[in-house]
């Protein structure tokens, strides 16, 4: 059974990288839909089921400017993946758990090192096997860190910052993390006991699906100044982690989609899709979800921090040198499933907005007041994980993103093939051997993990990144090629 059909609505080209779904198409749309997409990627976007969802999001109360989607758009629950929508808090703007996703603060962290590809290549298989043993997936059994209920509450309130007091994070790590690894005004009491139980033994675990830890090499530098400022040069080895808030975040999303089921009707809001349940940001249920979502986001930052702690320890043991002497430093950590209250200029006036980024990454430019001092001159690093066969990217935020997309850009390659179709295509093949033939060592725990995540299941990340670069939403800094992949 086909679950999506080609987009049937009107779509008008604006320029080489932008398309409009006019609000005149549907009576319930409050703003236009704007799709960032090149000619090369438009068919995937129109066939992927996400464009109808861009129009659905355009119906949300308080939405300003446009319902936007990035070139990695594909179908999601309620909002499309790759969706960006901002609502005006003082004009009854809503917050929707569907605009954040089940994996709250799914995101990416990148470490650079002084190691070169030549240093690592001869022992790569051994290194990947060691990382596979040490990086806990947390599927079925928990990770090595056990936190009491009281400690979980501190993680929910303090995120990575709490881990500094435990010797598991440094001030340098926090400075190289979006929002310093902690959203203020998180409300641990708004997180259910079930969510805390589901997350208690999963802090410091990768999870399954598209999450991974990778050994990579800087393959090409596009922007020498930014790359140099962040310690990146061609031939150097980097380490990337992609994961989120694990079962705790999934449960928070589920709890609030359930809790908000009857709320839209109470506020006179009519929705085209039950997955878009929402509440005004400035209402008791809206504030409660925001507090719980921030707590789950803090849990995710702590989760990635703990994984990096494990990674550093493994690398130090493996190479027989300290993490410092290996030059292991955090380039940055970004969230790509989150809603944040930010001030942006709308129609010439500064407005307090609730910016939903679901499968989209913040891309603040040089000089932005929310960036840590180290990034004020360059702009914010933007980390784009690709598929395990091709490449990942480091970009930098731009003024163009502030002008067009509330400081947002794409988040990855974006799926084009269903998991079932990917498994069918992998039948009779050994994906690990195919990757090994091109020099990439991949390990996965699940029976179907590598088949579902095979490179062909994704859009070409080069094309996705080229589009946001050309559209002025972020600029290319460096391309990273995978050498070793550990899947949960």
């Amino acid at each position: 059974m086909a679950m999506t059909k080609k987009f049937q609505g009107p779509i008008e080209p604006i320029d080489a990288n932008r398309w409009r779904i006019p609000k005149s198409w549907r009576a319930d749309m409050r703003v236009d839909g704007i799709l960032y997409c090149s000619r090369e990627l438009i068919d995937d976007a129109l066939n992927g089921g996400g464009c109808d969802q861009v129009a659905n999001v355009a119906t949300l109360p308080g939405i300003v400017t446009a319902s936007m989607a990035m070139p990695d758009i594909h179908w999601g629950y309620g909002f499309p993946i790759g969706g960006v929508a901002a609502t005006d808090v003082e004009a009854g703007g809503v917050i929707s758990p569907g605009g954040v996703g089940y994996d709250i603060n799914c995101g990416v962290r990148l470490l650079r090192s002084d190691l070169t590809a030549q240093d690592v290549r001869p022992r790569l298989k051994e290194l990947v096997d060691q990382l596979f043993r040490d990086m806990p997936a947390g599927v079925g059994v928990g990770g090595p860190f056990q936190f009491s209920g009281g400690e979980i509450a501190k993680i929910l309130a303090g995120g990575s910052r709490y881990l500094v007091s435990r010797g598991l994070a440094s001030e340098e790590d926090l400075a190289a993390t979006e929002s310093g690894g902690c959203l203020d005004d998180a409300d641990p009491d708004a997180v259910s006991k079930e969510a805390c139980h589901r997350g208690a033994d999963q802090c410091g675990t990768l999870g399954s699906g598209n999450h991974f830890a990778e050994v990579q090499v800087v393959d090409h530098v596009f922007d020498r100044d930014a790359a140099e400022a962040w310690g990146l040069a061609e031939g150097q080895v980097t380490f990337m982690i992609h994961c989120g808030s694990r079962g705790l975040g999934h449960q928070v999303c589920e709890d609030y989609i359930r809790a908000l089921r009857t709320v839209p009707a109470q506020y006179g809001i009519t929705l085209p899709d039950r997955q878009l349940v929402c509440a005004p940001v400035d209402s008791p249920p809206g504030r409660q979800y925001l507090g719980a979502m921030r707590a789950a986001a803090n849990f995710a930052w702590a989760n990635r921090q703990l994984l990096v702690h494990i990674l550093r320890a493994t690398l130090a043991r493996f190479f027989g040198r300290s993490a410092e002497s290996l030059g292991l430093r955090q380039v940055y950590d970004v969230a790509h499933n989150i809603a944040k209250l930010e001030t942006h200029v709308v129609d010439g006036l500064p407005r307090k907005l609730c910016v939903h980024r679901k499968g989209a990454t913040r891309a603040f430019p040089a000089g932005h007041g929310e960036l840590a001092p180290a990034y004020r001159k360059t702009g914010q690093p933007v980390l784009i994980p690709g598929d395990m066969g091709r490449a990942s990217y480091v970009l930098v935020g731009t003024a163009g993103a502030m002008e067009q997309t509330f400081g947002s850009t794409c988040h990855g390659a974006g799926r084009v093939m269903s998991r079932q179709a990917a498994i069918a295509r992998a039948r009779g093949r050994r994906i690990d051997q195919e990757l090994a033939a091109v020099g990439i060592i991949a390990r996965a725990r699940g029976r179907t993990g590598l088949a579902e995540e095979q490179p062909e299941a994704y859009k070409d990340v080069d094309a996705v990144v080229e589009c946001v670069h050309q559209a002025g939403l972020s600029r290319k800094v460096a391309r990273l090629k995978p050498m070793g992949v550990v899947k949960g």
Partner: protein
Amino acid sequence: MAKSYETIDHPADAGLEARADTLAELLEALAEGMAELICPPSSVAPAAWRTVAVVAEDLEAAAVDFLSAVLKVIQVEHFMVAQVSVREATGNALSAEVAGEPYDPAKHELAREIKAVTYHQLKIARGEDGRWFGRVIFDL
């Protein structure tokens, strides 16, 4: 056969469609199908049991809550599922006994995690032939 289920294709995730003679059997089929996406029930012994019970504002919402409750048993308690027996299925009140055993890495091969049971294209309905049909999509 009184009940059956099959996985269905979906752009990003996984779904199930089930058919059964009764609502109770339909929910059993969906819950067992969901458990199979995580770990084959054939490798799980029905050595212990858990109970789940939910009440919601309508039948479809109750079905999502019911499957979410079974998922919670798997995810929170690391309890693998062999079989689900629905005891009550009256309108929007559902309860069941879930038979299985604690996760044992030596015995149970996990295929994937399920993040959540969703409302997308959700359908729980009785057809004109009197048989029940259910469709549910899971976020992976």
